[in-house]
């Protein structure tokens, strides 16, 4: 296992998702947005770790990617004014990507996963709404919300296909990655889903709690390839020891 294999696997997956969600008009008129590589990494973590993979599993993974693409583009819809052609197409492209996710799962067909994914999508939208409309009561509430939003679909995927042991690490790491982006005012977060109701002190505390938890989880994850452990550590704690 090395970084090249990881990159190749992720890029190949992203290309496949992009092909699945291709729609000529939106492709022509919308700025090309790249799928989140970190989410792809954690979704494919069992595969990277040598777990048995199948065609239907791959189709399900593509469906999760289509949902992530839908979330990403809907998060870019302007909060007040969406009447430009570009904004209108963003609304519709997201709906189209959601439809692609359903078509992919219907083609397997995996009815249980259709329901599980839909429940997760519902919860993610509820959580995004709550975070947007209400103040987060505590760092723990913030962590719980981040885990749901950032890794809700990946968690469902891991659970459905017998990879539950990868869930906790993915939830913690993806939340940490997002919190670090918030802490460093990363432009990808500024352009995506966000809320003004998150206190920076809560972000710092949440980072501290999650960093410790991730460290513990990785220590006890005997099933995980050591190189992958290192990679996860690098991805999820990029600023450790540096002043934020």
């Amino acid at each position, binding site marked *: 296992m090395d970084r090249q294999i990881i990159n190749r696997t992720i890029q190949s997956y992203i290309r496949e998702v992009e092909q699945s969600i291709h729609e000529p008009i939106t492709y022509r008129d919308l700025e090309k947005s790249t799928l989140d590589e970190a989410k792809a990494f954690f979704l494919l973590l069992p595969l990277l770790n040598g777990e048995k993979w199948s065609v239907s599993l791959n189709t399900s993974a593509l469906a999760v990617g289509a949902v992530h693409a839908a979330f990403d583009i*809907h998060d870019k819809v302007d909060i007040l*004014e969406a009447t430009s052609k570009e904004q209108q197409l963003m609304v*519709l492209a997201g709906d189209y990507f959601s439809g692609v996710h359903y078509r992919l*799962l219907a083609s397997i*067909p995996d009815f249980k996963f259709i329901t599980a994914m*839909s429940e997760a999508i519902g919860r993610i939208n*509820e959580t995004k*709404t709550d975070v947007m409309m209400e103040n987060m009561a505590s760092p723990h509430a913030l962590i719980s919300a981040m885990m749901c939003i950032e890794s809700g679909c990946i968690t469902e995927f891991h659970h459905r296909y017998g990879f539950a042991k990868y869930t906790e690490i993915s939830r913690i790491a993806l939340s940490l990655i997002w919190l670090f982006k918030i802490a460093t005012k990363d432009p990808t977060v500024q352009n995506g889903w966000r809320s003004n109701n998150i206190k920076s002190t809560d972000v710092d505390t949440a980072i501290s709690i999650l960093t410790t938890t991730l460290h513990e989880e990785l220590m006890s994850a005997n099933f995980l390839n050591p190189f992958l452990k290192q990679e996860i550590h690098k991805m999820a704690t990029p600023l450790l020891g540096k002043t934020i």
Partner: protein
Amino acid sequence: MSLYTAFRKDLSFIEKELEQSVDSSSPVIRQASLLLLRAGGKRIRPIFVILSSQFGKYSLENVSKVAVSLELIHMASLVHDDVIDNSDVRRGFETVKARWNNRIAMYTGDYIFSRALVSIGEIDITAVHQLLAETMLEICKGEIIQIEYQQQIDQSFRDYLRRIKRKTALLLSSSCELGARVSEASPDIVVKLKRFGYFAGMAFQIVDDILDIISTDEKLGKPAGSDLLNGHLTLPTLYIKDEPEFQPFLKHSFDGTLTEEDRSKMLTYIRQSGAIEKAQFVSDLYLKKAVMEVESLPDGDAKKSLLQIAEFLSKRKF
């Protein structure tokens, strides 16, 4: 006897299921979803599912799952349409985007869409899911094409028909087909019901486009002429788009400079141009085709109700 009498009980059950399915843990989403549900609507899709199912082995449990799913998909698309059209009012009620903002409308629409799939997820018939997925994608493609055609005067009759097929007729056609499939109706009946839904849907949308011009702001729950104001040419306006007297109205509607006084003049112009009668004629043709499909179905209460609905669609004023 009211049109709804024959299936009121089942429709009430579906109405309750609809409310339960959007009973969100998020106060804002719950409020937004209930706002949409209570704004009503004709529930034409659930009705088509109920009636089509009666041509096979009727099970209210299965019918309800399909009907709830279709109505929620329709509702979710309306919430997102209001973002696209920047609409503050729908059916006389404040829209989600107007009460909160676009982002909440996007989340609410996505939430409702997810609930639609939770509802239908309990049906383990592959063909049902594949049909619904294809229908949803076609509807999205139709809307994307509509954006492409927005404010374009160079449109043909065929372009319009293709657009309304995807916008409305497809979901109604699928409502009938899914109702028939979920109750295991025979293949020839499935085809007839699917065709009925398609023809009725085409007629329904043309009447909708006519009402947008001949009805009042109060009855529509939004400004009359909204289609033009949003840059969409519909069948009545396609007939007169090249008339020199109509061109200034068209220009000002599309560039957002149409005054209230001119809107009133524009509506009067269209109403008196003969375009409404021509559009009504096309709608009636589709309706006749819909009726022909129903007439070839086995006799029974469901057949009678479908014929009544066809009649209602042609004469409705709302």
